[in-house]
C-alpha cells in the first residue's frame, strides 16, 4: 500500500487559487484546524468553502481567503454566532450560499454518487431559492407527481477532514459520538486530505475502537497528516473537548483589527502545528 503521509504544507502545495474546498466536522467540532491554519498562512485566495461551518469559515473570512461560502450555518456552538463570519457577511466581503442543512448533505451525497441532483422536500417555499438563484424543482415521474427541490450536486476540488486515528495508507477511524458528514466530503472531492490525532499501524485499529468506527477507507484519501491536537481549539471528543477559553480569545478579536493582528502574529503565523501548540500552551 502506498505511504500517503505528508505535512500540512504539502497539502497546501496541492491547492490553487479559486478552488472549492469542503471542510468536514460540524460548527466548532472536529475541524481540521492545522490544515485550515496552513491555508491561512499561504497566499491562497478566492476560495469557495463548503462546510457545516465554524471557525474554519470564520478564520478564512477574517484573512480574506474566501470568495464564496456554501453552508447550512456558521456557528461556534457555545458562541452561537461566528463573529468573524458575521463581519465578513455584513461587509459584503463574501458571496454566501445559504442552504438547509439537509440540502447540503444531499448536494454532497449527489456529488459522491456522481448524480446531477437529488430530490427533497427541504427548501420548498423557503428563501433557499433566493439564496441559490439557479435552484430548480423537479416533478416526480410517478403517479404522485410531487414537485420537489432538485438539490444540485456539490462537487468539491478538495476535501479536508480531521479524524481520530489513521494509518499511513489513508484508512481513518472516527472515535467520537458523531461522524458528521466527513465521508461524504471525501467522496464528493477530487483530492482528499485527512489529518489525524494519531497515526497507528493498520493492525492496531481494533485496539482503538470497534469495526464501525473505521468509517474512512484509503480509496477515499490521498494524503494523511499526523496532527496531534489538530482540531484545536474545536472539540475532538473523546480525545479532548473544545478549548472554550481559547475560542473566546479568538472570538473577541472580531472587529478589533489590532487584537486580530496580535492573535494572527502569535498563533496563526506560527510556521508549524508544533509551534502553534507551543504558543497555545504558553499563553
Amino acid at each position, binding site marked *: 500500500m502506498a505511504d500517503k503521509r505528508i505535512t500540512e504544507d504539502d497539502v497546501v502545495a496541492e491547492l490553487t487559487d479559486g478552488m472549492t474546498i469542503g471542510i468536514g466536522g*460540524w460548527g466548532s467540532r472536529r475541524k481540521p484546524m492545522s490544515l485550515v491554519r496552513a491555508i491561512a498562512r499561504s497566499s491562497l485566495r478566492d476560495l469557495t468553502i463548503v462546510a457545516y*461551518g465554524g471557525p474554519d469559515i470564520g478564520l478564512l473570512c477574517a484573512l480574506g481567503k474566501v470568495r464564496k461560502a456554501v*453552508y*447550512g*450555518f*456558521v*456557528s461556534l456552538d457555545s458562541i*452561537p*454566532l461566528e463573529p468573524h*463570519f*458575521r463581519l465578513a*457577511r*455584513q*461587509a*459584503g466581503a463574501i458571496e*454566501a450560499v*445559504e*442552504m*438547509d*442543512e*439537509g*440540502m447540503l*448533505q444531499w448536494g454532497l451525497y449527489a456529488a459522491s454518487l456522481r448524480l446531477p441532483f437529488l430530490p*427533497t*422536500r*427541504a*427548501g*420548498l*417555499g*423557503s*428563501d*433557499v431559492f*433566493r*439564496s441559490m438563484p439557479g435552484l430548480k424543482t423537479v416533478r416526480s415521474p410517478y403517479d404522485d407527481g*410531487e*414537485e*420537489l427541490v432538485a438539490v444540485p450536486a456539490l462537487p468539491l476540488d478538495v476535501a479536508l477532514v480531521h479524524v481520530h486515528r489513521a494509518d499511513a495508507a489513508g484508512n481513518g477511524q472516527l472515535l467520537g*459520538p*458523531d*461522524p*458528521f*458528514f466527513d465521508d461524504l466530503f471525501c467522496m464528493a472531492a477530487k483530492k482528499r486530505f485527512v489529518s489525524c490525532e494519531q497515526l497507528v499501524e493498520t493492525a492496531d485499529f481494533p485496539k482503538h475502537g470497534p469495526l464501525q468506527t473505521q468509517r474512512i477507507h484509503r480509496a477515499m484519501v490521498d494524503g494523511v497528516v499526523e496532527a496531534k491536537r489538530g482540531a484545536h481549539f474545536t472539540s475532538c471528543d473523546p480525545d479532548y473537548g473544545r478549548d472554550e477559553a481559547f475560542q473566546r480569545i479568538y472570538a473577541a478579536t472580531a472587529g478589533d483589527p489590532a487584537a486580530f493582528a496580535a492573535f494572527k502574529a502569535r498563533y496563526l503565523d506560527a510556521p508549524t502545528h508544533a509551534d502553534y501548540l507551543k504558543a497555545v500552551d504558553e499563553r
Partner: protein
Amino acid sequence: MSDHTLDELCAVACAEAFRGDGEILASPIGVVPSIGARLAKATFSPDLLLTDGVASLVANVMPVGVDDAPKVVEGWMPYRAIFDLVWHGRRHVMMGATQIDRYGNQNIACIGPLERPKAQLLGMRGAPGNTVCHPTSYWIPQHSTRSFVAKVDVVTGVGHDRARAAGPAATRFHALRRVVTNLAVLDFETPDGAMRLRSVHPGVGVDDVVKATGFELTIPASVPTTRAPTDEELRLLREVIDPKGLGKRELATK
C-alpha cells in the same frame, strides 16, 4: 395553586405543545423549550424521544445544564440520523425565531438583504426542511413588534402562505403547532392558517399582545388564560429538570 414564575409558566406552555405527540423525537432549541419537552416526557407525554444535545437518545429525564448528570442512553442519534428522521417525519421541533410573521414564516438567517445583511444570524440551519416535513413550534422569549413582523426579511421556516404557494409537496407534511412567548400562546387554528391568540399569560391583557404584534392577529371572542403549572409540575421543574434556574436566566437575558 402555589406561586410560579414566568419561565415556569412558559415551560409548561412549551410542554403542552408536545402533548399527544406519542413516540417521536422532540427537538427543543433553547433552554425553556428543553425544560418544557423534558417536563412533557416526565408527565403526560412519556413516549417522547429526547437527545442529550450531542448524539445520544436519553431514556431518563435529565436536568438541563448539568453535564455530569446520570444518563441512560437508549440509542445513537448522530446528525445524519437526525436528518433522516426530519424527512421521515417522526419529529417535532421547537425553534427560535428572530422574526415571525402572520402566517408563521420564520427568519433565523439574517436581518436586511441576503446579499449583504445588516446583521448576519445563524443561517438557514434545518428550518426549511423541518417546516415542510414534520410538526414545528416556536419559542420567542421577547414578544415585540421587532420579532412579530408584517414581513420577515428572509423565509427560513416556511409559513402557511408560502407552503400553499409552493404546492402539495410542501403542504403535505407541513404542520405549525404553537408559538410560545413571554406574553401568550399562539397557534394557527384558523381557516387560512393565520396566527391566532390561543391564551394570554396571567396578568397580560389581550391589548398587550396586540400592541406587541406587528401584524393583525386573529383574536377569538374569549381568550383563556394560559394554564398555571400544577404542584407536581413545579416540583419536577424545580427539583428534577431545572435545579439551576436556567429558564429564568434565558428569559432575563433576552
